[in-house]
C-alpha cells in the first residue's frame, strides 16, 4: 500500500506527453529580459547600468532585504537598459534588458563536466553560498532557499524532504531532471542535508514515474540517509504540506511552517541547482522548462537561460497556433494564462503549456448547488464554496474567519465543481485582500 495524503485531492488526467523528450539545450536568445522579482519577497536591486558589459553568471541585481534573492546574468553582452517588461503577472515589472554578444562565462564558474561529490564547505558556508548564488525554490513559488535554511532558534530540521512528485499534469521538467541528472541531484541532497544538520532525507516520487523511482532508489542505495518514497498518485501531492503528511504522517498546523514539525521541503530542481552553486560555483541562471500541450507538434524539455522570451521557445516546438486558445505559464492546475508571448522565462517557470481552443473554453458560471464536492476535494479541509461566496460579496471579515489564508490555491475545488464556478479566482482575490488587511493590522499594533 503506497503512501499518500489523506484529506481531499483530485485525479486530473496526467497528460505527460513530453515525458520521453530528452532535455535539449535551448539556444541563447538575442535579447534577454531578466526580471528583478523572480522570487518571493522584495525585488532585487539592480547593480548594473545601461551600457555595462556583463558575462554569464555576473551579479546584475542584489537582494534588497532578508526576504529577497540575488539575480545573475544568464547571458553575456551589453546592458541595453534597466526598464520594465511584462511578466506572467500581466503587469510590467522592473527588468534588466541585455543585448546578447557571444557566450562568455564568468571565470569563477567551473564548467568541467566531472561530478564533484566531495563536500568541502561547512554548514554556514553552504547557506552563504546559496544566498550568493541566488538559489530559490524551483518548484514554482521561488521561495529564497537561504531564508528557508535559516532555521529559527529552538527548532531543528529532523527530515529533509525532496519533492520529485511533479503532480501538475503535463509538466515533466522534474522527471527529465531525475532521469538525466540523478547523480547531481543525489550530491545536491547531501549538501542540503549537511546545511540542515540532518541525516535523514526522503525523496518523494509519484508512482506514475516508475523509471525515476527505480533509478533513484538504485543511486540512493550507495549513499547513507537518503530514502526514496514511492507515493500514490494524487493531486496536489507536490504541495509542501501534503507531501509532509504523505511521507511523515505529520500535519503542519494552520498558520505554521514545515519547520514547526521538523521538516524542510525542497524541489529536486533546487537540489540540482544547489549542487551547481556549491560544487561548481555556478549561480542560478538556467532551468529546465517543459514546453507542451496538444497544439505543440514537438513537446520538449529545454534547458533554458532565464530571460529567454517564451515566444522563442514556442517557435522551436512548431505549434499549431490556429488551434491554440491559451498559453499558460506553469501547469494547467496552478499556472497562469499569459497576456503576451513577450513574457520571459524566470527561475520559477516550470513549464509553458499551450491549450487547445476546446480545453481553454470557459464554461458558463452557474449557481452553487451545495453538492459539497469542493469540500471533499480541498486538501486543506476548507470550505471553498463558502469562501468564494463571501469573497464575491466582499465580506472580508467572514473570508478571514473561513481560514482563507490556509488556501494553497491548488485549484482542486474548481476542478471538481459541477457548476463551473471560478472558485479559485474568487478565493485568490479574497486571500490577497485579507492578507493586506492582516498586514496593515499588524503594522498598527
Amino acid at each position, binding site marked *: 500500500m503506497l503512501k499518500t495524503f489523506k484529506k481531499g485531492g483530485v485525479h486530473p488526467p496526467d497528460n505527460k506527453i513530453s515525458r520521453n523528450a530528452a532535455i535539449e539545450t535551448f539556444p541563447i536568445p538575442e535579447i534577454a529580459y531578466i526580471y528583478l522579482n523572480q522570487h518571493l519577497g522584495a525585488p532585487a536591486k539592480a547593480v548594473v547600468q545601461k551600457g555595462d558589459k556583463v558575462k554569464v553568471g555576473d551579479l546584475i541585481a542584489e537582494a534588497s532585504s532578508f526576504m529577497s534573492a540575488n539575480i545573475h546574468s544568464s547571458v553575456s553582452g551589453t546592458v541595453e537598459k534597466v526598464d520594465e517588461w511584462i511578466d506572467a503577472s500581466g*503587469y*510590467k515589472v522592473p527588468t534588466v534588458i541585455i543585448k546578447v554578444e557571444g557566450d562568455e562565462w564568468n571565470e569563477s564558474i567551473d564548467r568541467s563536466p566531472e561530478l564533484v561529490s566531495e563536500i568541502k564547505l561547512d554548514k554556514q558556508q553552504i547557506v552563504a553560498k546559496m544566498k550568493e548564488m541566488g538559489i530559490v525554490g524551483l518548484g514554482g513559488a521561488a521561495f529564497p532557499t537561504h531564508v528557508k535554511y535559516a532555521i529559527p532558534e529552538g527548532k531543528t530540521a529532523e527530515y529533509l524532504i525532496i519533492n520529485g512528485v511533479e503532480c501538475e499534469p503535463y509538466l515533466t521538467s522534474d522527471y527529465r531532471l531525475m532521469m538525466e541528472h540523478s547523480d547531481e541531484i543525489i550530491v545536491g541532497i547531501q549538501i542540503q542535508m549537511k546545511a540542515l544538520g540532518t541525516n535523514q532525507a526522503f525523496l518523494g516520487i509519484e508512482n506514475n514515474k516508475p523509471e525515476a523511482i527505480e533509478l533513484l532508489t538504485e543511486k540512493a542505495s550507495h549513499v547513507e540517509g537518503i530514502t526514496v518514497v514511492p507515493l500514490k498518485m494524487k493531486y496536489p501531492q507536490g504541495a509542501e504540506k501534503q507531501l509532509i503528511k504523505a511521507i511523515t504522517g505529520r500535519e503542519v498546523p494552520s498558520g505554521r511552517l514545515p519547520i514547526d514539525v521538523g521538516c524542510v521541503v525542497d524541489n529536486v530542481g533546487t537540489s540540482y541547482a544547489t549542487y551547481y552553486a556549491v560544487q561548481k560555483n555556478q549561480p542560478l541562471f538556467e532551468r529546465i522548462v517543459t514546453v507542451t500541450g496538444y497544439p505543440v507538434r514537438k513537446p520538449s524539455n529545454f534547458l533554458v537561460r532565464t530571460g529567454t522570451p517564451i515566444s522563442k521557445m514556442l517557435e522551436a516546438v512548431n505549434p499549431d497556433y490556429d488551434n491554440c486558445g491559451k498559453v499558460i505559464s506553469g501547469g494547467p492546475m496552478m499556472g497562469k494564462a499569459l497576456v503576451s508571448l513577450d513574457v520571459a522565462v524566470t527561475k520559477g517557470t516550470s513549464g509553458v503549456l499551450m491549450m487547445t481552443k476546446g480545453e481553454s473554453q*470557459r464554461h458558463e458560471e452557474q449557481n452553487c448547488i451545495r453538492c459539497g464536492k469542493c469540500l471533499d476535494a480541498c486538501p486543506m479541509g476548507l470550505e471553498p464554496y463558502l469562501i468564494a461566496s463571501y469573497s464575491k460579496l466582499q465580506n472580508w471579515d467572514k473570508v478571514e474567519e473561513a481560514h482563507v489564508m490556509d488556501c494553497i490555491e491548488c485549484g482542486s475545488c474548481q476542478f471538481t465543481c459541477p457548476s463551473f464556478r471560478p472558485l479559485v479566482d474568487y478565493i485568490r482575490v479574497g486571500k490577497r485582500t485579507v492578507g493586506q488587511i492582516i498586514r496593515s493590522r499588524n503594522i498598527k499594533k
Partner: protein
Amino acid sequence: MSILIYAVVALTLIGVIAAALLYFTAQKFKVEEDERIGKVAALLPGANCGGCGLAGCRNLAEAIVKRGDIDGPSCPVGGNEVMTKIASVIGVEAVAAVPKVAVVRCAGSFAAAKSKSQYDGIQSCAYANSLFSGESGCRYGCLGCGDCTRACKFDAISIDKTTGLPVVDDEKCTGCGACARACPRSIIELRNKGPKNRRVFVSCVNAEKGAVAKKNCDNACIGCGKCVKVCPFEAISLDKNHAYIDFNKCKMCRKCVEECPTGAIHAVNFPPKKVVETPQNVVNVEN
C-alpha cells in the same frame, strides 16, 4: 381588613425598592448619546439608500455629529436644502456645496486602445485588475467590466457597448462617489458639475512615459505639457506623466482642448463652436 393593609404596604415597599434599583441601575449603565444625532437623523430622508457612502441615514447622522461639521460625507439625495437644516442643528454655518458629478477619466475605447489579449474570467473589474493590466496593455485604463455600474444606486452610470467605457448620466448622478470607490483603478473622479453642466477635464490617468502610453492607446495623455503652457489661469498641472485640470481654477476657455495633440482633454456639454466666416471660408463653401 388587616390583610388589605399588609398587601398595600408590601406592594408599596416592593415598588419603592424596585424603583430605587431601577434608578441606580439606569444611572450606572447610562449610555450617553449626543441628542443631535437623533435630530439630524430625523432630518435625513430616511431611505437608507447608502448614497452617502455609509450604511444608512443613522450612520450618516452619527458621522456628521462626530465630525462636528458638514464637510465630510453628505446626503446627495437631500441636497443643499437638507444639509443647511443639518448645519443649523449642529451649529455650523452651511456653505452651499457646489454640485459634483462623477467623471470617467479614461478614453481608451475599443477603437483607441486596441485589445492585445482577451479576458474571459470573472466579469468584475476588481478581479480583472488582480489578474492583468488590461486587454489593451494599459495598466491605468478602464477594464470595462462595470463595477461602477453595479455600485451606482441611482442608475446613473452605464457601459457604452460601442466604446466599452462607462458613461455618466448628468441628470441622474447625485455625486455620491460610490462609483469612484468601486473603481479599482481610481479612474472616476468627482468634479464640479460646472455651469450648464460644462466641464473640461483630462480623460487619462496614465502614469507611464508618453511613448509607452501612446503605444497602448491613441487617446492617452502623453505628458507633453503643451496644455500647461497654454493655460492662462495656471489651472493645469503635470504630475506622473499626465496632466490634471484643477476644476476650481479652470475658467473653461478651452485653449488646452485645441492644443492637446492626442485629444486627451475633453470638453463636454459646450455648444458646437461657431465657424467664423472669414472670406476664405466663404470661398471654400462656394467652391
